[in-house]
């Protein structure tokens, strides 16, 4: 069975790019449009990895990461956040919230796959 990945982003195009790349590599991908939806789907599903944007409406990525870790939802599952080089300091915040790693935007499919495989240990 292929591993499932949850991608949380308010941008439809980013979600689509992620889905295409990951499903092409054999992963099953589920999508959520904001942190709250991401949290709900994470609580209901069995995911091997969560990929999330930080800047989102309703509930931002930082809050979502914090909630996931505090409520021990998908305990120990890696969370990778998307960030831009200019976001100085945000990495520390996200890591303090419990994120596992990050992916710098803009990214190419190879980079996404490299990071996904890195945190999944494949």
């Amino acid at each position, binding site marked *: 069975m292929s591993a499932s990945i949850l991608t949380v982003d308010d941008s439809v195009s980013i979600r689509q790019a992620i889905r295409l790349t990951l499903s092409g590599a054999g992963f099953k991908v589920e999508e959520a449009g904001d942190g709250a939806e991401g949290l709900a789907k994470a*609580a209901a599903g*069995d995911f091997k990895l969560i990929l999330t944007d930080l800047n989102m409406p309703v509930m931002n990525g930082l809050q979502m990461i914090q909630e996931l*870790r505090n*409520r*021990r*939802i998908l*305990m*120990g*599952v*890696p*969370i990778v956040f998307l960030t831009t080089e200019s976001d100085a300091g945000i990495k*520390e915040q996200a*890591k303090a919230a*419990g*994120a*596992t*790693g*990050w992916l710098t935007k803009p990214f190419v499919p190879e980079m996404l796959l490299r990071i996904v495989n*890195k*945190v*999944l*240990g*494949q």
Partner: protein
Amino acid sequence: VSGQDPVETFRIEARELLEGIEQNLLDLSERLHDRELIDAVFRGLHTLKGSGAMFGFDALAAFTHHCETAFDRVRKGEVNATPDLVSAVLNARDHMRALAEGDSADDGEALLSALHRALEIAGGEPVAKIEAPKAAVWRIRFSLPANAFLNGVNPLALLSELRELGECRVIADTSALPPLEELAPTECHLAWRVELTTQAPRSAIEDVFMFVMDDMTLSIESDGPSEQTATVAAEAPDEETAPAAMQAAARDDRSGGDVRKSEQSLRVPAERLDELMDRVGELVIAQSRLKQLASASPDVALRSVSEEVERLASELRETMMVVRMVPISNLFGRFESEHVHLIDAVTTNKTEFFREPSHFDFVTQECLPQIVAEGQRSIRAWSAAASIGAEAYTLAMVFEEFCADHPGLDYAILGTDLCSEVLRQAVKGIYPEAMIEPVPVALRERYVLSGRQSGRREVRIAPQLRAKAAFARLNLMDERYPVADDMDIIFCRNILIYFDKPTQAAVLRRLCSHLRPGGYLFLGHSESLLGVELPVTVVANTVFQRL
């Protein structure tokens, strides 16, 4: 894979391996010094030999062993890869193929003597060192922050990335592990020392740790391209921040002590692993014969045993497959499998079966007689913080005993937990033998099967009990539970203490709403209903009855 005939699966795999070996040999005949090709040929031959032995292809294993040994010597630089040697192995491939298909009568003696001749000549020439690009030996020490596991960091992934860079010797430093009773299983207490031989630059090693670099203890030092010397010079700019155990280990290194050797005792010698593979191979073959006999027999009991054996054999085989996949040069593979055992050994607690025995006495003496008196035909119980299933199976044993005296009475148990990993363990119902010590001997004899897996004493809950227990993922913090609302018995022990007061109240209220009137709620001994108004009455210490 598991649905197929394993022997057929092996044949398919053998064909692929032989094709790979052939292609690599052809390439090698044009680039005789290509290190990667030499390694690849060796690995292919080694895998072919190992799997062959595992699935009963003894002639193939024995023959391939000669070719493998030849390439092992090439790999070590003892002999050169000569055109003669390469073509001797190339010529042997059809023979190996025939042996894998099971249709060769010839013993391949002529091929072997050609191989040995080529090997002699190759060794007789002055040994020109295979031009391996200069590799440096790096000594890497690292430990992760305690919350690494919870934050999704997988140390095994880091180690396998290091292994991709080159040959690794990995030593897990367990000295910072606290005693079992103080150990929080979700925290990372291990540190690692890795000796990596690679051409890759330091930045490639640092890259492995890119996500954890800032919060971890990491030191990377190079011993230079030569064989590493015993000295650990100018170590330790970060020794002050390193855990005490690491410092101790470093001191031992410096004094040339044998500490490393003793830590390596977790490794399984290659021969033992091969023996184990052979046994598994034999088991799988014997099991498929049993299956044939059973399927032709009208005896239902025989069939059910056969199915059980089939499942166990297939699980065992898969475990062995994983171990077998690791190249022999890579001792960490074996180390890792021990390491996994270490982890699940520390997360399973001796006191989990029949924890707080008075609760189970109460179940037998009060709850169950009442259920019978009310004319119910079945008992429904819910273990709401099921973890690896010890509580659910304890209930199963208690119910099973009671039902034996009350024909017509049946039971079902639901176990839920937030973590799907522990639930998978619960479904399997396999535990280290030490864990069932609290189970009364009479019950153990009836409901627990003993066995030995990979040298570790293990037990398994009997199938008839496992069939009565279902496990599902559930978050007690959710506002609704997808669970029947007429439970007879709910156990929710030693989990509420992790919640804040308002959450405790909400969880307790929800649990009560899933009890039928007259049903029982059991809480942990350190937990109480203090301050929460619930439709229950206290009937014993930490036992409550729904009004």
